[in-house]
């Protein structure tokens, strides 16, 4: 016989990894004068106490390193903590600074213009990546059926004028429109865009997902099947509604 806890583990996984993007303030330092830094943070705090209280921050020492000014990471984090903020990362640090940060359990983020010579190659890769990412997302229009086993990926919106078969997978960083029967797997906002939506004229999908929040075919009830619907995200749950 199954115990309660066993039933629990059968029905739901203990944890899931999901991709999310956060916006975090970055403290860009241009001076190693800790007293001046402390004073500046204090003033900022006075301006918007609620905003900075317990706010996660990343500190960026890239400028300092470019100028050749050294700073003690341990002292710096102490100052940030004292100002009521929670440092969650270092950016643009050299190897010594990064390892020091790791000792303090602060993860290091790579920067676009890292100063250390050996990471020069990485910098170039980073730059090309950010350059392609900066290109305006394009809308992809597909006029032929997307068959079982095929995958279509759009960096912007995806518009499909033919059917999407069971076993096909269509993905877009933006919205997905299917002006025909949708039987395959459809994923919108795959890079975390929670504003993305899915539109289709006949919903029979195997899986629908927006920004990592998904529903499988079994979760779709008959009231929204086989008809034109739109799907959007509201407080981490997928809302499926008739278009008409």
């Amino acid at each position, binding site marked *: 016989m199954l115990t309660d806890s066993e039933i629990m583990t059968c029905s739901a996984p203990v944890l899931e990894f999901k991709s999310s993007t956060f916006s975090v303030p970055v403290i860009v330092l241009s001076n190693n004068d800790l007293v001046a830094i402390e004073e500046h943070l204090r003033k900022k705090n006075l301006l918007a106490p609620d905003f900075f209280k317990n706010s996660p921050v990343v500190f960026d020492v890239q400028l300092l390193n470019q100028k050749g000014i050294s700073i003690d990471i341990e002292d710096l984090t102490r100052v940030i903590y004292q100002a009521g903020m929670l440092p969650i990362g270092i950016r643009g640090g050299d190897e010594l600074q990064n390892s020091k940060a790791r000792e303090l359990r602060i993860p290091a983020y790579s920067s676009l213009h890292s100063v250390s010579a050996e990471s020069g190659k990485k910098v170039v890769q980073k730059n090309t990546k950010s350059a392609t990412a900066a290109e305006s997302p394009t809308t992809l229009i597909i006029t*032929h059926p997307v*068959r079982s086993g095929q995958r279509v990926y759009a960096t912007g919106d995806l518009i499909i004028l*033919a059917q999407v078969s069971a*076993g096909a997978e269509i993905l877009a960083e933006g919205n997905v429109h299917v002006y025909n029967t949708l039987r395959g797997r459809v994923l919108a906002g795959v890079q975390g865009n929670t504003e993305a939506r899915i539109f289709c004229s006949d919903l029979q999908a195997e899986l629908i997902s927006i920004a990592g929040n998904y529903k499988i075919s079994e979760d779709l009830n008959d009231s929204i099947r086989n008809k034109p619907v739109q799907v959007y995200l509201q407080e981490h749950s997928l809302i499926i509604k008739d278009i008409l």
Partner: protein
Amino acid sequence: MARIIVVTSGKGGVGKTTTSAAISMGLAKKGHKTVVIDFDVGLRNLDLIMGCERRVVYDFVNVINGEAALNQALIRDKHCEALSILPASQTRDKDALSLEGVGKILEDLSKDFDYIVCDSPAGIEKGAHLAMYFADDAFIVTNPEVSSVRDSDRMLGLLSSKSRRAELNQEPIKEYLLLSRYSPDRVKLGEMLSVQDVQEILSLHLLGVIPESKSVLNASNSGTPVILDEKSDAGQAYADIVARYLGEDKPHRFIDEKKGLFGKLFGSK
């Protein structure tokens, strides 16, 4: 230039070889010089269905490897002058085929024949890929059941992305649906997908429906393509399919239930 037709399905046992034999015979009987090639290297069946298994000397792989000339390997059909068969090798596997080798043979055959029918093996691996790669037309053989339909859909995806026409950005392969082993009685009982169901899933031009028929097994066992059995329903279905493919306008048959004697007498419907 010959027209290259691939008979494919993804799934096995749906009637690809039966169809290849029937339509190649049908085309040849209409006076078109036709060659049918067995791509199922290692599982040679076409020669049995065509009734020429005792005349195989050289095969497809021999020609690819330059061990035999094309003319030595081609077998002239007993029933029809215009039809030739290029058998597969039974002692090798699909790796013996190469894209260049197949391309060269099809090019050579194109000079002498009007139609080249490629009998694809099941699956989506090398043999099936090579069979469809050079095709101009594709006959998708599907049984009215979900797994066969799903596999056909997968095959259609490959036809539109992994073929020569797709890679050279030419006009896509023309795709035709052949629904085989169809039984209107069982459709009525809800045991089988209907023509409409299959067409809705595949959205494909229907070339014809071949009814489930005892004559197919009889024809296979005796080594005569079923299309030569003109009295049989399956034979007639294939004759219709060939005619439609060549542009004749033939109404679809075998989709509705057979009327029993009673129905015929009273002319119901």
